[in-house]
């Protein structure tokens, strides 16, 4: 579908139904009464392209592409201000993460959105051996935005790293392989199975 939603699809339940089926807590979206309290409560609200209230209205207006390719829900820091205040008790934070996750799985989430990038680094790092390799994660994070800025950050952080090594808080050897959980194979099997189950649950729209 084009970004310019066809007139025929506007203000229909189609995208709402998709969200209800495939997005965590998506069944709540229809209950929003458009009061705007969430948007007004969000500490990062002004930085969002579309604050939560708007996202909910866009879903109802059928703006599928605009919602799923938006960087907005990636801006949520899970502060829970909106959830606490929503008079309709929508689990807004969870819906934001649910939408982000769904867009990611569909492969249409904004590629360079920093939150998304970091989340991916973290997950890839963790799922490999079942434990987070902090050294690798840290270094990957330094280089997330390119080689030059990576070297700059690494140099800046070097004294801290050396101190940590001295006090045995970190081992440089971790960079080569590093240690993981006992049964990595088992973990991978579990994750694979989980993906299969989730994929089966996912409805086609």
């Amino acid at each position, binding site marked *: 579908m084009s970004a310019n939603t066809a*007139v*025929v699809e*506007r*203000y*229909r*339940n189609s995208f*709402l139904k998709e969200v209800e089926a495939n997005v965590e807590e998506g069944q709540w979206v*229809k*209950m929003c*009464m*458009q009061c705007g309290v969430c948007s007004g409560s969000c500490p990062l609200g002004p930085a969002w392209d579309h604050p939560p*209230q*708007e996202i909910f*209205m*866009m879903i*109802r*207006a059928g703006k599928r592409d605009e919602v799923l390719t938006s960087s907005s829900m990636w801006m949520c820091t899970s502060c829970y201000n909106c959830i606490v205040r929503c008079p*309709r008790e929508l689990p807004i934070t969870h819906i934001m993460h649910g939408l982000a996750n769904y867009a990611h799985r569909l492969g249409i989430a904004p590629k360079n959105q920093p939150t998304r990038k970091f989340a991916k680094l973290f997950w890839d790092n963790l799922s490999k051996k079942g434990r987070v390799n902090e050294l690798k994660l840290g270094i990957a994070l330094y280089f997330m935005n390119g080689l030059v800025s990576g070297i700059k950050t690494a140099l800046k952080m070097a004294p801290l790293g050396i101190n940590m090594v001295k006090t045995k808080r970190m081992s440089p050897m971790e960079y080569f392989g590093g240690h993981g959980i006992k049964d990595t194979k088992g973990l991978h099997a579990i994750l694979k199975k989980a993906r299969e189950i989730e994929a089966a649950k996912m409805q086609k729209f």
Partner: protein
Amino acid sequence: MADVKIGAYICKGCGIGDRLDTKQLAQVATRDAKAHVVREHDFLCNADGVKMIQNDIDSEGVNRVAICACSRRAKTEAFRFEGVAMTRANLREGVIWVRPATDEAQETTQEMADDYIRMAVTETKFMTLPQGSEKATYNRHILVVGGGISGMTAAVEAAKTGYPVILIEKTGTLGGSAGKAWRRIPQKAPYANPEDTGVAALIKAIEGNSQIKVHLNSTLTKTSGAPGRFAVDITTESGSTTTENVGAIIQASGYTEYDASKLTEFSYGKAKNVVTQAELDAMAKAANGAPLKNKDGKEIKSVAFVQCAGQRSTKEGHLNYCSGHCCLDSVKQAMYFKDANPAIDTNIIYTDLRTPGAGGEDFYRSGQNKGVTFTKGQVNEVTTDGTVKFKDLILNEDTEEKADLVVLATGMVPNSGVDIEVVKQDEPGQWKSNNESVLNLDYRQGKDIPLLKQGFNDSHFICFPYETRRTGIYTCGPVRRPMDMEQAMEDATGAALKAIQAVENAGQGRAAHPRSGDLSFPSFRREGCTQCKRCTVECPFGAIDEDEQRFPVFNEARCRRCGTCMGACPVRVISFENYSVDTVGQQLKNIDIPDEFSEKPRILVLACENDAYPALDMAAMRKIEYSAFARVIPVRCLGSVNTIWLTDALNSGYDGVVLMGCQKGDNYQCHFVKGSEMAHYRMSKVNDTLTTLNLETERVATYEVAITDIERAPQLINDMAATVEKVGMSPFKF
């Protein structure tokens, strides 16, 4: 008439005895005011004090009682004596509580109290005990005009209470607008689904009730008389007329749906798939549960609801009010579709969603739960192919939606009869009935109940919503204000109770609200009357007719005892037994007016007894002080103030006059609706009087005072004291 024997009773309780020289007050009562029996008592309102007064009434022949104690609004239970005319001198709230307890203030405070004693005793001299009207008639029949859900509910409720009902309906069936609907907004928890309208059950209840007589295809072609003795002509379509006598009338003439063909921007009438809310309900009723189809026979898969179509808009020809029921009715109608088939898309486009009633919010939520889309938007156009063009107010963009069916939430236009300001009443002797009129009253002031804003029948909106400006005639349902079925049913029940009350009051010659129970009524001295018609025109309740010789004819059962007629009469021939030009005029003339050089001015305050006087009492409770030179006289309504009182006051040397009435205009708070307005109008001409007397115009000030103006009311008095100080003492002190 028995000899006048006045008893004046001076209380020493509540600090009155400490602050005032009650011996002197007793002397004033005896010597100056000539009361026949004068007694002091330590606690007049206790059993002993009350017994003392009752004894005098029983064995001393006292028939006028002046209670010189607290405000007339306090201790009303204790001071209630049968068979005597009574008044109060307000020594507590009117004197000691508004004056400082200092030595310097003592002299003027005592003078204030002395004057209130003179005033009270003088007033009783000119009062007689109201005897009630000889014309009082008891008729338990209640006429209900209109067989819709309001009218039917009123009929059933009145009949349940044992009052026989005559119900007339213009069309051939009972039910009205509600009868054409498929379902109604739910009235019971969990407020989740549309409910049966209840109309069929009501019709059944009426048909099975021998107390209710139904006239179908009938209209009212004449209403004359007064509460307790209305005579109504009921005429059928074929022209045959029967006359019935009834005690009270309930007008439940309902509403007509706004004419959607005026909404050309929404293609109503041009596009086959654009309907009004009422039409959709009729379609649903006809389908009786089967899937709804468009006029062209096609199945409906998407519906757009356009809220506030031609409503809440100041555009020419639109209704600029909210009809109150339409938002929830759209939710209900969207459910007609969603409940039948959740795959049908329904979108309610609103600017402000309004969900009145206890269950309103729950019903809205239930709609959301069922997948009804709610869009905050402003619809600008509906094209002939059913495309709804609107501005999404959340996403802030112009957009459009194509729908198989577009429903316009058009508003309610009240069936309130003719506008009596426009359609003047026929001259006496030439009365004809008018097809446009609902009631066809033969009252001098016009055929229907006066209108307020927007063409709804005027009822006392802020304080007594059932009371119209025609006593014994109560409006209910959307003819009074826009409302949904639940509100209309509740409204109708209330109106039925008011009608019963009116019947009972009329039977005993007692006034209806707000002077409920008052037996006094205005009478006029025919010989003095100049047939000027001021009283007929100014009576806010249309109580006064005219005979063939153009003399006023008072209908006391229609009268609310405001005294506006008394205030209006230029030759002062109208009076009540216990309230007259004299009862007030003599009070103000019988106070002590110190000479010009005494530096003791006198300010007359005429305060409406409903709002301004209580405000002053409350100020007193808070010990807010005001000038010792003020003399306050409560009046039934500012409308009852006759300009002679002002002239008399100014001529006898008062230095200033303050008049306090209620808010007037469309948002009136005046208990008598128009009284305050009439008074303000009258007072606007008082400047001439002042100029003739060569007095400064600032000496008379007229204000609108609310019952909550607790600080402002005393301030207004003090302002006048300051004005007098500025312009100087009146030269008219003799």
